[in-house]
């Protein structure tokens, strides 16, 4: 553990360089503070900088690492510096895919139909709530890849617009 190791921590659109120094301290930001990190139980750490301390909990794989400290919780992506960002696992919001597993309850459009941005294309039901899937832009429906009653997963597009 002698050499310094560099990482990039991404949260949403921001990327922060984080270095693990030879003595085990962790520097956050290019010229940022150095923190001493002590594990207190699996997934729980006390992080200290000078006289200040924080309690931080961590769980999950590097590309979807959950971090919580009092009042703030987020999912970040931790990669060694120089390595490409991990592919996003969550469906991009506003795309024509299911945002979460659910059942198709209604397909409101047909192939060849002209739609405008914001039109409801289909309606999913998940966790007892209806979730409308809306057109992200104007266009023509070129394919419909689901039918009412289908159980669908996030990922593949359910409708295509050209």
């Amino acid at each position, binding site marked *: *553990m002698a050499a310094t190791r560099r*990482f990039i*921590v991404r*949260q*949403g659109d921001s990327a*922060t360089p*984080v270095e*693990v120094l030879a*003595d*085990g301290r*962790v520097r*956050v*930001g290019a010229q*940022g503070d150095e*923190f*001493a*990190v*002590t*594990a207190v*139980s*699996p*997934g*729980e*750490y006390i*992080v*200290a*900088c000078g006289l*200040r301390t*924080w309690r*931080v*909990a*961590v*769980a*999950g794989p590097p590309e979807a*690492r*959950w*971090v*919580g*400290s*009092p*009042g*703030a*919780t*987020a*999912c*970040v992506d*931790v990669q060694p510096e120089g390595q490409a960002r991990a592919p996003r696992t969550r469906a991009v*919001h506003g795309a024509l895919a299911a*945002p*979460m*597993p*659910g059942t198709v*309850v*209604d397909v409101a459009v047909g192939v060849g139909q002209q739609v405008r941005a914001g039109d409801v294309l289909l309606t999913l039901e*998940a*966790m*007892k*709530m*209806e*979730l409308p899937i809306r057109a992200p832009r104007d266009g023509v429906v070129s394919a419909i890849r689901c039918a009412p009653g289908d159980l669908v997963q996030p990922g593949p597009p359910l409708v295509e617009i050209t």
Partner: protein
Amino acid sequence: MIRKVLVANRGEIALRILRACDELGIGTIAVYSDADAGAPHVLAAGHAVRIGAPPPAESYLAGARIIEAARAAGADAIHPGYGFLAENAAFASACQEAGLIFIGPPPAAIAAMGSKISARRLMERAGVPVVPGETPADQSDASIEAAARRAGFPLLIKASAGGGGKGMRIVRGEAGLAAAISGARHEAKAAFGDDTLYVERLLTRPRHVEIQVFADAHGGAVHLFERDCSTQRRHQKVIEESPSPALTPGLRARMAGAAVAAARAVGYRNAGTVEFLLEGAGDDARFYFLEMNTRLQVEHPVTEAVAGVDLVHAQLRVAAGHELPWTQAGLHQRGHAIECRVYAEDPSTGFLPQAGRILLYRQPERPGIRVDAGVVEGSEVSVHYDPMIAKVIAHAETRDAAIDRLRAALSEFCILGLPTNIPFLLAVLDSPALRSGAVDTAYLDEEGSGLASLTPLPAAALAAAVAHVEAARANSADGQRLRHDPWTSLPGWRG
């Protein structure tokens, strides 16, 4: 006499009831769907019965299978919790026909209050004020549209059979009417198996104040004061408290009197809640009957805290034929209690419900804090059920102290693995409107959007995120270490 209770529910409410039975020396039976094998409520029961596939219609709503399980396991009573079969009069009747005690009101009272048409008529006759509206006898689109025009905009279209915001639409004008009718009808059918719709004028910025009532089979009926549930998002309660900041002693007495009259009018027994909408505040405020929830409520711990009672114990005793354990004169509100509901939903993407595994779970523990949770670390939040993870209830001497206590508890509530509404709840608790007691039912929908912003992680949290990666890497790079507790390698991280 009740010796063994089957709890026909899951999650936090199943645990709450199972624990109450344990405390009274009553045997317990849990039921579970395939999605809940190994769930906390299954482990907490003396006996557990698998009832079917994950979709509620094949498990927690499958009344016949649940009754069969109860008979096979030797139960003498069924507690339905809330949701699922709790307000299903046919299920309550079926229990009785099978020789089982239904821990709740008589089927006739559920039916009378379950239909908004009959509930309104009954309330009008009992002298309880009601909001202008109707359930058209002819349920065709044209007839519902005509009823909507009679009530006037803005209005609500709701499922006659339901509650909890499911199958409910706000319509502000002619333009959205047709879409709202078909949407409400579909959701009503899916959630309650009954797509009868009800149309009602929407009051301007009312508060939601409900009265807890309790009646026994010996003519006893009391109220246990109010809960103010005005902090709602799209008609889903987010924060509940008692006493209500809007009530004066005079108004409280009038509303409580109306609630007890409502309960007596339907021959009510066991725990129930009469919900009112309140326009204005103080002695001049007007209140209107909204609906009666013929069951234990999600927010019952708020009442338990301020009144110093155990409502589930009382439910079990009254269902067994005993008299109410309290007299009205012996009940008092002590201090202030406030509850918030922690949901697996993402405030940064329009509160989309979230499913997934809870990777790490640390719940707050401090004086005056109660946490009713349905999950443990490793639990899966399933797409099939409600996304509520836990309720956090704070009790203190004053309203300000209770809010401070709830805030502190929520800050240290750590749930990793899926987004929760905790940052949003903290922002609501910090808002001047909530602090001053001025929140009405429209507040969160109209002014709460700015409260959903993301709180950035402190730099220290990023340091721990990286150290955690490094610890895992160091462990896997050194094969023999894997055979030891991986955490023995961590002293290397001491600074």
